[in-house]
């Protein structure tokens, strides 16, 4: 697996495309600003949401049990999964009982985290992703590059070519309206035929045992309402205490994500419809470990709006795939090391620590601080990239020994070519400043 820096190098090789990616996401960030600033209570809302999440995380055990009891009373089957393997096995068992070979799934980052599609494919079951962006990347055997805008790394020409190959649309047609219509017709067939539908969960309400799914396309609803069996997969951190808390979160979610006032559909699933079977799978997969660590606990507040992606100067110029994780961007970079420290040791370093992510986060997660905490932990665990470790040790040694600092400084001033080489990653894509002839100390002594 190439590291973030290696994968980014490939991404930015196409400068024009990098600029386009950068500007497109910044445009989404600006839409978010407009939608947020309309509400004079915006900052108070963020604070309130953050506090509701603090309260929920502190009482998560009792809220999960309350949710389970209510949901069961509502006729929903509740399952618990300790890890991805158990989650996938539970989902498979439900599908196998139904005997389905093809099913529809709306957007769920959790099923990406569990690699559910691959798991089911190995069991001979085809998953049809129904979110337009997800269907596009699925056709291309790619992963989503953004949790809200899964195909944001692609241009319309790419989508036109993909649909030409998979849906038989005319070659060269790249009109978004036309391509969306082709996907609508193609997926409508699947919606009408599927007996099983999988959806994610945006919020689960302990007080009522209901869960809320938000989409703009209506694909979650098309799938769930037409299927005999609805399976909703959620992480245990998606619980909120009361129904009225939804007012706070629904106001924040879409405005933060895309600058919309609210998603087109915010569906409240309370009980299965007559004759329907409804399941909820509650997944841990490292979340309880995150919860027990005061440094990282706050990351569980995330409502997956991706505002931190859109504002991040590193994400915008390196693309989602460089993060080699289902959840990319700043939030992904603090979630992923919790699941696998070694495999994701590069991600907390894929940041300038500018703090813009924390500033836009609707639930006030201290993302940039947690990135910094992870860097320290990874360094201590000996998992940081080798170059960084050597560099940091050398720097620490030099700064701790004034004599060596002075000698090193004067050497580098005379032979600045030592730094301006391709061996120095900072030198790539940058022009280094001229080194001054004398140091401050030398100058000061002469006066």
């Amino acid at each position, binding site marked *: 697996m190439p590291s973030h820096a290696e994968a980014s190098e490939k991404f930015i090789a196409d400068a024009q495309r990098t600029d386009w990616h950068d500007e497109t996401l910044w445009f989404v960030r600006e839409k978010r600003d407009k939608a947020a600033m309309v509400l004079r209570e915006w900052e108070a809302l963020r604070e309130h949401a953050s506090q509701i999440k603090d309260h929920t995380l502190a009482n998560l055990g009792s809220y999960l049990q309350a949710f389970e009891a209510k949901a069961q009373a509502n006729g929903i089957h509740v399952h618990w999964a300790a890890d991805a393997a158990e989650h996938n096995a539970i989902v498979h068992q439900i599908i196998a009982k139904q005997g389905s070979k093809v099913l529809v799934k709306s957007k769920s980052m959790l099923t990406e985290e569990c690699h559910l599609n691959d798991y089911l494919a190995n069991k001979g079951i085809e998953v049809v992703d129904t979110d337009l962006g997800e269907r596009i990347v699925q056709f291309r055997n790619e992963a989503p590059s953004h949790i809200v805008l899964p195909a944001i790394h692609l241009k319309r020409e790419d989508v036109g070519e993909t649909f030409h190959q998979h849906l038989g649309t005319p070659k060269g047609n790249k009109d978004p309206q036309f391509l969306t219509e082709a996907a609508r017709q193609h997926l409508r067939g699947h919606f009408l035929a599927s007996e099983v539908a999988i959806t994610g969960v945006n919020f689960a309400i302990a007080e009522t045992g209901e869960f809320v799914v938000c989409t703009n*396309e209506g694909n979650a609803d098309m799938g769930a309402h*037409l299927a005999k069996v609805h399976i909703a997969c959620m992480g245990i951190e998606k619980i909120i205490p009361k129904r*009225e808390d939804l007012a706070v979160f629904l106001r924040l979610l879409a405005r933060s994500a895309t600058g919309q006032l609210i998603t087109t559909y915010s569906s409240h699933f309370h009980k299965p419809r007559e004759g329907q079977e409804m399941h909820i799978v509650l997944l841990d997969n490292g979340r309880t470990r995150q919860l027990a660590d005061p440094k990282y606990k706050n990351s569980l507040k995330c409502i997956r709006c991706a505002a931190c992606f859109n504002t991040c100067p590193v994400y915008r110029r390196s693309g989602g795939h460089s993060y080699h994780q289902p959840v990319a961007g700043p939030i992904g970079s603090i979630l992923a090391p919790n699941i696998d420290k070694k495999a994701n040791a590069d991600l907390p370093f894929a940041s300038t620590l500018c703090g813009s992510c924390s500033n836009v986060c609707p639930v006030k997660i201290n993302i940039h601080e947690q990135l910094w905490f992870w860097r320290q932990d990874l360094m201590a665990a000996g998992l940081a990239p080798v170059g960084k470790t050597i560099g940091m040790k050398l720097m620490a040694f030099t700064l701790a020994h004034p004599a060596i600092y002075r000698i090193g400084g004067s050497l580098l001033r005379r032979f600045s070519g030592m730094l301006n080489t391709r061996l120095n990653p900072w030198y790539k894509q940058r022009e280094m400043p001229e080194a001054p002839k004398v140091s401050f100390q030398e100058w000061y002594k002469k006066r």
Partner: protein
Amino acid sequence: MSAREQILGKMEALEPVNHPGNFKGASVDFDFQASLEVVGARVLTAEALEIEFPRRRRYDKTLDGLSLAEVEVLEIDGEFGVAENGAIWLTEEAMPHRVAPFICQHLVINVSKIVPNMHAAYEELKKPSSSFGLFLAGPSKTADIEQSLVIGAHGARSLTVVIRA
């Protein structure tokens, strides 16, 4: 040990923190009609609706058994609208099937009550709730191809709202 016991067992030692209570101080100065336009819905008078969609199907029990995929224009009643974002609360009882407002080609919703914001909306929803309900704001849409907005992704291609006294 089951996954349930494992998960809950890890949460026993957590220190409780208070819920901040209801949100206070929310803005109330929103225009429902303006918000509807932002989310891509059209507002028509009852008279204009007759001219625009003379052959629509209004939901009543007789629609049961009809092939929903073939309903071109469906008219249903919303419980209330939310001025801040143009969302309309719909419940299962007001529609022939849960999938109805999604699967029809064009949707018409009648609304007579409007609340200012989402906090007021959930005040309305305190009473015993329906088995399925949703906030619907505008027609189905997507911007998944190069961020160009396309109306009519999977759900209704248009939403027309009639505000009735």
